[in-house]
């Protein structure tokens, strides 16, 4: 059943036009395919993370339910979906008016360029469409074999730890692993040769050294118990491991199909990870380009007011959250402006003459080149860390808020730059998820699992945490412990399969 169709006719001409502008500005993108579909289809695609085929699971149904209602009640409408693949697929809503389509196309070229060039995406699988479909087939087969309920319940458990990822694994490709193993074996060889390269020394020297070594070992007769010996059945296998799914695949008592499913879900989670790490930049970049392309090239004279209306809707600020589109595009523009005028570096920063600083303009014209560079190497954290300025926060009217227990509500806390920056970076740290790592896989020498929450100042939601521990228990099949700090106290929570207790 074809629910989407590739664009043709006037829309195709429009794509050619927009693509021409994208080329003109130097965007570097994967081949772009636009398809149109009705709102029901775009809701389906959005519920499935943009992919036409996923594994069967009720959560897609839940998201679909929510999206359909949102559309029906006119609360929300999805203009477009774009996915990180090569060729890059994007879906347009067929009822969009002409200007919407223009804007969306320009926006999509921005995303496409970002997917292709941002380094955090460099190892994502661009054939993910096939991978997702294959994963779906696999899981369907497991469902046929082991029963839909059983498999779906297992997937529920795994999705519970889907956000416990290690960002560093984004660069852990096969080549990297291989080259590291080579280095390791090299190092081992060196160690067996007392730390020297085998080939660099003369035969005479080597034979001399080996002779000495033999003498030495002849002297030591008594074999000692190694210093760190413990009687635990296994060594602590994975202390510090943040990739909990991989840890479970390697160490939990799983059946083959279970391990396979975790593998599939882990692959998908890592595929989506860069998008979660670059939300502000990605949306900012795409918005920068739809705005630039439309205002400078693509808009007809009768379309400006409508464009301003739509654009303003997208950029709307909220008191409860920062709008990634707004902050992203403005920060991109701010960087462009600063590098165009030369407002960076030692000289500018140390300038104390306010008037001079206010009118600083070196006419460098480096802005465009700079933001292209920024989109290549940054993620949201480094982006804000490096380019957020007090003036910018002021202009964007950003503030921090916190819960006031006395009035039982959220209240504006500070407009202080350092506070804002700290709060923003904390929120983005570890893509917004708590940092959880394996502390001990043989806790109490009883094969219990001890996880540690690396506390960054914010407590866990304990209701969710306990439910997650129950799911972890189902996978690990031995008691699960969580070390965290709760209400300023160091605690270890324990779930032994039946009930919860607090150890310390």
């Amino acid at each position: 059943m074809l629910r989407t169709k590739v664009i043709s006719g006037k829309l195709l001409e429009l794509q050619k036009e927009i693509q021409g502008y994208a080329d003109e500005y130097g965007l570097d993108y994967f081949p772009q395919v636009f398809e149109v579909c009705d709102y029901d289809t775009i809701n389906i695609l959005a519920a499935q993370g943009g992919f036409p085929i996923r594994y069967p699971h009720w959560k897609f149904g839940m998201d679909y339910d929510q999206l359909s209602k949102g559309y029906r009640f006119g609360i929300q409408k999805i203009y477009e979906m774009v996915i990180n693949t090569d060729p890059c697929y994007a879906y347009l809503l067929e009822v969009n008016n002409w200007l919407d389509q223009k804007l969306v196309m320009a926006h999509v070229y921005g995303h496409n360029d970002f997917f292709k060039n941002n380094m955090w995406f460099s190892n994502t699988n661009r054939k993910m469409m096939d991978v997702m479909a294959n994963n779906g087939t696999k899981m369907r087969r497991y469902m046929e074999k082991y029963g839909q309920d059983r498999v779906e319940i297992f997937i529920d458990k795994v999705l519970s730890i889907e956000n416990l990822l290690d960002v560093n694994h984004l660069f852990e490709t096969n080549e990297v692993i291989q080259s590291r193993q080579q280095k390791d074996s090299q190092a081992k060889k060196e160690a067996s040769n007392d730390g020297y390269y085998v080939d660099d020394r003369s035969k005479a020297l080597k034979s001399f050294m080996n002779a000495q070594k033999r003498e030495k070992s002849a002297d030591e007769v008594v074999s000692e118990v190694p210093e760190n010996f413990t009687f635990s059945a296994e060594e602590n296998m994975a202390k510090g491991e943040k990739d909990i799914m991989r840890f479970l695949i390697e160490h939990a008592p799983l059946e083959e199909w279970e391990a396979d499913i975790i593998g599939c879900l882990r692959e998908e989670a890592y595929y989506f990870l860069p998008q979660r790490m670059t939300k502000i930049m990605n949306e900012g970049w795409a918005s920068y380009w739809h705005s630039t392309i439309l205002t400078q090239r693509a808009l007809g004279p009768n379309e400006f007011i409508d464009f301003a209306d739509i654009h303003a809707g997208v950029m709307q600020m909220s008191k409860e959250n920062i709008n990634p589109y707004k902050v992203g595009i403005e920060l991109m523009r701010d960087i462009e402006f600063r590098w165009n005028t030369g407002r960076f570096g030692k000289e500018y920063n140390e300038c104390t003459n306010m008037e001079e600083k206010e009118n600083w303009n070196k006419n460098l014209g480096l802005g465009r080149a700079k933001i292209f560079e920024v989109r290549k190497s940054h993620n949201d954290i480094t982006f804000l860390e490096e380019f957020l300025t007090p003036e910018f926060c002021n202009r964007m009217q950003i503030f921090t808020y916190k819960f006031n227990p006395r009035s039982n509500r959220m209240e504006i806390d500070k407009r202080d730059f350092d506070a804002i920056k700290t709060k923003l970076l904390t929120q983005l740290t570890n893509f917004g998820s708590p940092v959880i790592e394996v502390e001990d896989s043989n806790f109490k020498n009883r094969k219990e699992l001890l996880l540690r929450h690396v506390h960054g100042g914010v407590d866990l939601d304990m209701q969710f945490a306990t439910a997650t521990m129950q799911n972890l228990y189902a996978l690990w099949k031995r008691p699960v412990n969580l070390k965290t700090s709760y209400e300023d106290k160091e605690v270890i929570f324990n779930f032994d399969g039946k009930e919860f207790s607090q150890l310390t």
Partner: protein
Amino acid sequence: MDHPIKRDHSRFRKIVKGKVRDNLRKYVSQGQQIIPKGTDKFTVPMPSIDIPRFKFGDKSEGGTGQGEGQEGDPVKGKPGDGEPGEGEAGEGEGSKELEVEMDVEELAKILGDELELPNIEPKGKSQIASTTDKYTSIGTVGPDSLRHLKRTYKQALKRQMSMGVYDPMNPKVVPIRHDYRYRAANTKVEMENSAVVIYMMDVSGSMGEEQKEIVRTESFWINLWLKSQYKEIDIRYIIHDATAKEVDEDTFFRTRESGGTLISSALKLCKHIIETDYDPNEWNIYPFHFSDGDNWSADDTKLCLSLLDDYLLPNSNMFCYGQVESRYGSGQFYKDLANKYGTESDDVILSKIKNKEAILDSIKEFLGKGK
């Protein structure tokens, strides 16, 4: 064929229904949670169907926002709104509360399954049967417009395989006339029947807010069940102390009077309503009476009993009396009814409702007879 997500969707609906079923007791005892939406839909709040994850607690986290305002201004609402200690802002902050829509049938089915309620057999008088066609089955004859392609090809494939002419290397399936399958209609006979529920409640001083809340919750579920059983349903409300009057739903649950209690006044009005608007031969009639059991005098109780015997019982499906426990109520009326009709009577159903937790059992007592 439908998109696979429809199957995900129905799995989701199934889980939702399971959750409602599991937590039915909670939903019932906490009354207000299920919100009617229009006439035959309900919104059921569902806080935790989402997959649990390690995540930050909302309140200690706070956040960042954009916009105007001074330090100390609430993030939601206008600056200066709300005195400290009052504001409700911050509630539900960041939480993804799920609201699920269910229709009468779904919710009633859950109630029915949970309480093992028998379907009601409407009184067999003057029913109008209507038929509806639903295309749920498959036939071998029919118009081309109803041809079921998938089933047709399946049939063709079956035939070819059993004839041994199917070649997996060249999988051509060609249906012949004989293979054609058509969607066919199943005719369903539906009975047009209608019911009226007449709620009577004692609103004298001894019935407090809590007691009314119990009645409100109980009536919600009773209505739900009866709605699922009858095509048409009318609901009438009568409040009484020493005198009775008919009111709308809102007034019914809000009014609080002081003064004495003459239950007979309500029963008289109930009789009057039935006589004027509802021919007992065509309507299934359900009078429900809720009070804390106090009646002004033994004489009035006698009058009540004779009203029941002479008119209400012969003309209604059953008479239900729910006694809500209150600090002031004596519970005498329950005893009087129980003495006369016994607690196992099919015509007069008695139920004591101690507190909110007892609502579900009370509903079962009322509706468990299938009348």
